[in-house]
């Protein structure tokens, strides 16, 4: 059964849909191949699935309009099942056999890191939908990776946003709860690195596995540590357990979560334990609450309406990362033509692009292009998002 579902997913080839009459004469133009590797099944399926759906929707739309400069795009999509080794195999296949022009993916930092050396060696532009800064910058040499870009906001931006908020609230002692995956490690490292700048004392530093279903033991330790705020850095499911356990333990500390839980599904899973949680989130989930003057507002609402009309499921920030990746990449191909070096150069020149994740301003030394203003501090009230004043 699982296999059946997988094969179905793997063979999804988007593109080659009805071409408008005006373009029939240009049918002979060769298609532009874009390779995509995402974590569609496996532990990060809540990231990969909306990304896949978003890319499918956008490719269809673009081809219906006649493609890029008359060239239809052919999207070749593979699932890496959340596995680093499979990620590499699929990326190699896209580069060597399918001969794609550029790559989008993957969904998680770990699975992206697995393919970074390969795309760099093959000189293929890659736009990742994963968050870690190590994707775009070599952690050893601190040099920007020439061929790799990413669309999600870096953890350091989220941490800065959180710390700004805590400082305003007069918090001095913090506790960290992080998940033992690439996402949790990276968030934890940033929290530890930036805490001294704000004179925060980390009084507890606890970890848990992504599949854990009870974190009371760690929280009990935190409860006795004198922390004023608990910062939980994990993806959605274990974060919901942390929220529930804190409520069960009767803990009154402020609970801050990472942007990794910014989906409606999280509120559903955590139930009333989610009330009052504060987190930095991309603007997508609070699009309606934004002032009309916000340059992202139109993009966000358009994307959300189209996505929800097509898939009948609430939009998530992860799909938004794919939206940004696809839009910037296809814009770059439009300007550069089918030349990988030029596509890369165009990606680096993106300025003032209003995406779902923020206003992107790329540069030779900034392959992310976002600032901490990409985040809004939001809280959960009556089962819904609200801006923190």
């Amino acid at each position, binding site marked *: 059964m*699982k296999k059946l579902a997988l094969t179905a997913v793997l063979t999804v080839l988007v593109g080659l849909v009805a071409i408008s009459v005006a373009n029939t004469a240009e049918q002979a133009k060769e298609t532009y191949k874009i390779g995509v590797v995402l974590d569609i099944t496996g532990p990060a399926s809540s990231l990969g699935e909306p990304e896949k759906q978003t890319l499918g929707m956008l490719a269809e739309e673009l081809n219906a309009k006649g493609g890029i400069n008359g060239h239809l795009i052919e999207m070749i999509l593979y699932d890496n099942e959340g596995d680093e080794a499979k990620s590499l195999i699929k990326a190699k296949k896209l580069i060597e056999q399918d001969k794609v022009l550029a790559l989008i993916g993957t969904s998680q930092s770990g699975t992206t890191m697995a393919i970074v050396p390969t795309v760099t060696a093959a000189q293929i532009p890659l736009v990742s939908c994963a968050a870690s800064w190590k994707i775009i910058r070599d952690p050893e040499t601190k040099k920007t990776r020439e061929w790799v870009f990413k669309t999600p906001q870096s953890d350091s931006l989220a941490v800065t946003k959180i710390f700004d908020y805590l400082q305003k609230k007069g918090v001095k002692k913090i506790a960290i709860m992080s998940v033992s995956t690439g996402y949790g490690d990276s968030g934890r490292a940033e929290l530890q690195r930036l805490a001294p700048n704000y004179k925060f004392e980390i009084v507890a530093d606890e970890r848990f*596995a992504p599949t854990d279903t009870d*974190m*009371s033991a760690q929280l009990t330790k935190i409860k006795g540590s004198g922390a004023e705020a608990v910062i939980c850095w994990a993806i959605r499911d274990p974060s*919901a357990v942390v929220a*529930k356990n804190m*409520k069960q333990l009767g803990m009154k500390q402020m609970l801050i979560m990472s942007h990794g839980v910014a989906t409606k599904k999280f509120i559903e899973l955590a*139930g*009333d334990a989610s009330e009052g949680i504060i987190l930095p989130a991309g603007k997508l989930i609070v699009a309606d609450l934004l002032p009309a003057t916000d340059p992202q507002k139109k993009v966000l609402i358009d994307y959300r309406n189209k996505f929800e009309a097509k898939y009948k499921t609430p939009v998530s920030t992860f799909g938004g990362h794919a939206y940004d990746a696809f839009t910037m990449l296809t814009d770059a191909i439009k300007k550069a033509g089918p030349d990988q070096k030029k596509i890369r150069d165009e990606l680096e020149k993106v300025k003032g692009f209003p995406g779902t994740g923020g206003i992107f301003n790329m540069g030779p030394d900034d392959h992310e292009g976002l600032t901490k203003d990409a985040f809004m501090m939001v809280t959960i009230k009556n089962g819904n998002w609200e801006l923190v004043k």
Partner: protein
Amino acid sequence: MEWYDQLLQYLITGITTGAVYALVALGFSIIYNSTEIINFAQGEFVMLGSMIAVSLFPLLGVPLWVAVILAVAITALIGLIFERLAIRPVRNGSVINLIIITIGGSILLKGIAVLIWGKESRSLPAFTSTEPIKFFGATLSGQSLWVMAGTLLAVILLHYFYEKTITGKALRACAFNRKAARLCGISVERMVLFSFGLSALLGAFAGVLITPITYTAWDAGTMLGLKGFCAAILGGIGSNPGAVMGGLVIGIVESLSAGYLSSGYKDAFAFLILLLMLYLRPAGILKKKLEKV
């Protein structure tokens, strides 16, 4: 928080999860007694119980307790069907063949769950108020009380059933000696069928009890099944009091190791206990199985 309050909190947490492991372990034990097979689809019964409850609850708009009872009943029915379709046709096969069939059944049930419910995690609201209850220096949630009370009730009922009812006695007779039981006029086939239903029922019960505390998903049964298996081995497979004891010990060890060492070692400890038991006392625990396989 003083050290003894912390210890108390770890114990409460451990007993709550341990109670769930105990229910799963009881399921293993019941099926082992009547068939001598280890049913690796046990974890999937847990998952099915909670998934069915989650979908019945908002869907039909029924009260939570109705959804919970229906889910447990439906899962028990699935257990019966599983036995009829997968185990009965090959009942004369070797134990190892039957065990492999249950592994296949587990994969099949997970696949069906993905097709029906998708890959998303789901949760249930707590049975009663979610306000934490103070207990000396520690706190426990209403749902933890439900888990403990539910397990206790299940254990008492099960004991009564085995000791006092004809069907229960027939089941025990099958466990002691199937041939002799058959000679006495007990339908061994029916007892095997019954034990699958009963163990699916217990699994589903564990699932609905724990889901409000955590969450459930198509693959949530695997780990619970493995932990329940460790508990069953620890307590001596086939022994009902042993299963309960094993479950509680594993739950408490996990909670203490997460509290005093690191949560990273939590699962490792459960499996370490399993390995130690298999190494130190395999004959005492798995005697029958070792002879057969």
